[in-house]
């Protein structure tokens, strides 16, 4: 617990020393002013041109510097351990980001080497794919001449082997942990077979246009390595086709990766990639300042201004990551939409992002940020601080004097931002409209058990809401949190119990819609209704804070949790 408590303390310190990032970007959205330290303008075509770009803080000259190569990138991760290199790794998205996406490829990986457009699945181990007239039968043409790090040839049999490993309970190499971790990604897969060495056929249980998204999560391991070492020992010899290959893995200490000389997408520029677990933010900060690491995930927020002055490369980027208060819609008072909407008007999001977190977040009035294809422009930023409106809604619902409610929140952890100080601010905000908010900090495991169980579980009825960091970044998981499919105990993770048949229907239609633009339009509509119904109170969007040494060049942060490290190099 101690490091979490420290995180809290350090975050609280940010309140006392509000100097953060003031030099880095204007406090309110403002147009980019050009020059190296202004917001990035990616060379690629942008689908997010409407986004207020000033929330980004990317040094474009460094991000696009591809003039050199070589060097060793040493990453201080916030994870408590080296993620194990299974398919997928553990330790959450940091595991996917630094281990999974480096060692493995997917059939249809998401392209993270771009600045401003929203990353979507594209060619990877599959070069192209198509769905038949029945809307069920998918044909994937596989890339030829690709080899796993151990020399095994990549082909359709290898993909089938990986499907068996995750879906076929009687398969000798069935991996129960990997299967459960992949559960959602393979829910719609009915059958799979190799048509010929380089053609794979997948049939889905129902028409499902998001299959390339689902396949973008499924990492492909070398069948030879799995067979040679067995399910339990495999991770010590993790072998994929990815841009980096694992050369050293000591649990609890370090993972080292070398560039894959024969990578089909071109050899990465780094000489070496080293990962170190540093769960304590103060330790990451000191390690960065002493040059022990040159890439730090989320340093303490109050250190960012100092780091910026010391010449470190502070990176912020809008991406689909939202801090949400998921409300118990089963019971009073949040069974009433007016009460739920009142909360949307009661939060001072601007204050949280400017005064409290000094530019490290962005106000959220919907699940997605403005400019994302699923952001509903009609609803727009309707939900903003309006104390009178909040009071009026509460009075209309029969609570003119407010009420008492409790919210559970995690004490820290990767991706959760700084729940302690943020919730204290919300507590003050709610008091202003008459709501007495009780804060219940929960240790991570208890917290996540509560969220997965949802408010339908009698054990969780003592809470009215839960603070959750969600990633509306990619199907299929994105929909599980607000459709009837996700209702516990038979589904996961619709904790609130919110069901709107119209939303269910729109998501269903989107799954049946094979035209990307029409699909986006349907999902945009669904997001608008979800936001209006307010089963989620949207607080802020995270900005993916990370700080790099100036010597680290060529890293272009994407609008995503994940990162492409192939063009990164480190100046001597």
């Amino acid at each position, binding site marked *: 617990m*101690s*490091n979490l408590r*420290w995180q809290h303390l350090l975050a609280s310190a940010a309140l006392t020393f509000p100097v953060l990032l003031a030099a880095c970007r204007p406090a309110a959205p403002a147009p980019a002013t050009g020059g190296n330290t202004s917001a990035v303008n990616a060379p690629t075509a942008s689908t997010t041109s409407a986004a207020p770009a000033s929330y980004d803080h990317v040094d474009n000259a460094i991000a696009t510097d591809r003039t050199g190569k070589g060097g060793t990138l040493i990453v201080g991760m916030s994870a*408590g*351990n080296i993620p*194990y290199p*299974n398919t997928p790794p*553990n330790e*959450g998205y940091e595991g996917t980001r630094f281990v999974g996406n480096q060692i493995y490829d997917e059939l249809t990986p998401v392209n993270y080497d771009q600045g401003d457009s929203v990353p979507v699945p594209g060619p990877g181990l599959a070069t192209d794919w198509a769905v038949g007239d029945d809307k069920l039968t998918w044909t994937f043409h596989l890339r030829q001449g690709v080899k796993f790090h151990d020399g095994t040839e990549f082909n359709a049999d290898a993909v089938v082997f990986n499907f068996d490993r995750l879906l076929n*309970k009687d398969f000798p190499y069935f991996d*129960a*942990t990997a*299967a*459960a*971790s992949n*559960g*959602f990604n393979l*829910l719609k897969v009915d059958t799979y077979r190799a048509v010929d060495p380089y053609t794979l056929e997948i049939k889905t249980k129902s028409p499902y246009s998001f299959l390339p998204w689902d396949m973008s999560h499924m990492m492909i391991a070398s069948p030879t390595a799995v067979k040679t070492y067995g399910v*339990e020992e495999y*991770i010590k010899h993790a072998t994929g086709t990815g841009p980096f290959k694992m050369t050293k893995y*000591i*649990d*609890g*200490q*370090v993972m080292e990766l070398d560039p894959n000389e024969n990578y089909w997408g071109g050899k990465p520029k780094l000489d070496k990639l080293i990962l*170190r*677990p*540093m*769960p*304590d933010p*103060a*330790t990451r*900060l*000191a*390690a960065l*300042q*002493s*040059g*022990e690491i040159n890439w730090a995930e989320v340093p303490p927020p109050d250190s960012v201004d100092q780091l910026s002055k010391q010449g470190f490369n502070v990176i912020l980027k809008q991406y689909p990551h939202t801090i949400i208060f998921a409300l118990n819609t089963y019971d009073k008072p949040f069974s009433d939409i007016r009460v739920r909407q009142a909360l949307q008007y009661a939060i001072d999001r601007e204050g949280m992002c400017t005064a409290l977190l000094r530019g490290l977040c962005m106000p959220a009035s919907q699940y997605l940020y403005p400019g994302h294809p699923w952001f509903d422009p009609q609803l727009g930023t309707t939900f903003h601080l309006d104390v009178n409106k909040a009071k009026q809604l509460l009075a209309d619902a029969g609570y003119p004097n407010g009420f008492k409610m409790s919210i559970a929140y995690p004490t820290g952890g990767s991706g959760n931002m700084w729940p302690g100080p943020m919730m204290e601010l919300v507590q003050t905000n709610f008091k202003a409209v008459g709501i007495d908010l009780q804060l219940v900090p929960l*240790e*991570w*495991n*208890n917290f*996540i*058990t509560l*969220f*997965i169980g949802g408010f339908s579980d009698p054990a969780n009825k003592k809470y009215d809401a839960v603070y*959750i*960091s*969600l990633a509306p970044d990619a199907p299929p*998981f994105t929909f*599980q949190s607000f459709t009837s499919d996700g209702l516990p*105990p*038979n*589904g*996961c*993770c619709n904790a609130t119990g919110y069901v709107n048949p119209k939303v269910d229907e729109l998501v269903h239609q989107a799954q049946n819609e094979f035209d990307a633009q029409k699909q986006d339009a349907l999902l945009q509509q669904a997001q608008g209704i979800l936001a209006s119904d307010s089963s989620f109170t949207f607080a802020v969007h995270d900005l993916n804070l990370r700080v790099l040494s100036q010597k680290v060049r060529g890293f272009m942060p994407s609008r995503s949790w994940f990162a492409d490290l192939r063009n990164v190099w480190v100046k001597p």
Partner: protein
Amino acid sequence: MLGILMARRLVAVVPALLGVSVVIFVMIRVLPGDPLATLLGAQGSNPADRAILARTLGFDEPMPLQYLHWLGRLLTGDLGFSYVRHYAVGELIGAAIGRTAVLAGAGAVIGLVTGIGLGTAAAFRPGRLLDRAVSALAITGMSVPSFWLGILLIILFSATLQWLPASGMAELADGPADFLAHLIMPALANAAITIGLTARTTRSSLIETYGEDFVYTLRAKGLSDAQILRHVAKNAAPAILTMIGLQVGYLLGGSVLVETIFAWPGLGNLIYTAILARDLILIQSSLLVIAVTFILLNLVVDMLQIVVNPRVRRLASA
């Protein structure tokens, strides 16, 4: 004679170990939380896959059966398999306990040498400036939280002076300089309490012995200060020895905070992350290993008492 004594003490260890194993097993299972939750993360999984996983991990068995299975495997030397880390628990603990031993060993050497040295110096002239300075230092060492001291050390030596690496551990094979550079700060942070406790215990134990009648006799015989100290030290040893045994146990098992701050991949760190992740097999086997270590250390200290203290020897054989 000594053999029988030791055998008797060894037999007494068995019920203690069984009791400890039951307590550990039950304790971590009444903790709130779900062992599958951390394994699968916030995105959870679908219930069918969860059920398969629970069956694979044996969590669907009744508790007594789970306990017996664990015990059965323990007797064959198998500590289990951690699905959270995807590693054999025996391997994890084996690697971690070695690293913790390095840290504890360094902490013990720094702590005991400094503590005994300071305590002896203070006991020599009670009430004088040196004595008071040592007492102040000892109290400070015992009171300062080790994790806070650790962070101060990091801020000074890593962030500001940039002399020492902030965290992690280097293998001895990678060079002794790098190894020591990583070791020195966590060892110091770890040793603070030991320095304080050892200094105080040594001081009071020596002063007490100095006050005994036989010291007057020795002085009357005209022995030098150094010769007297030798006699006094031998008589003060049992109390100090007991404390040393407990301190080594504390250093082995109690360095959770220091290991976390310095990302030292030892047993404390292992248990800390295992508890956060509800990695049941890893928690219960690690705790058991620590309990066994404690019991064995106590046993060793008891044996040493018998060797150095004739009174105990007579009492024990009576």
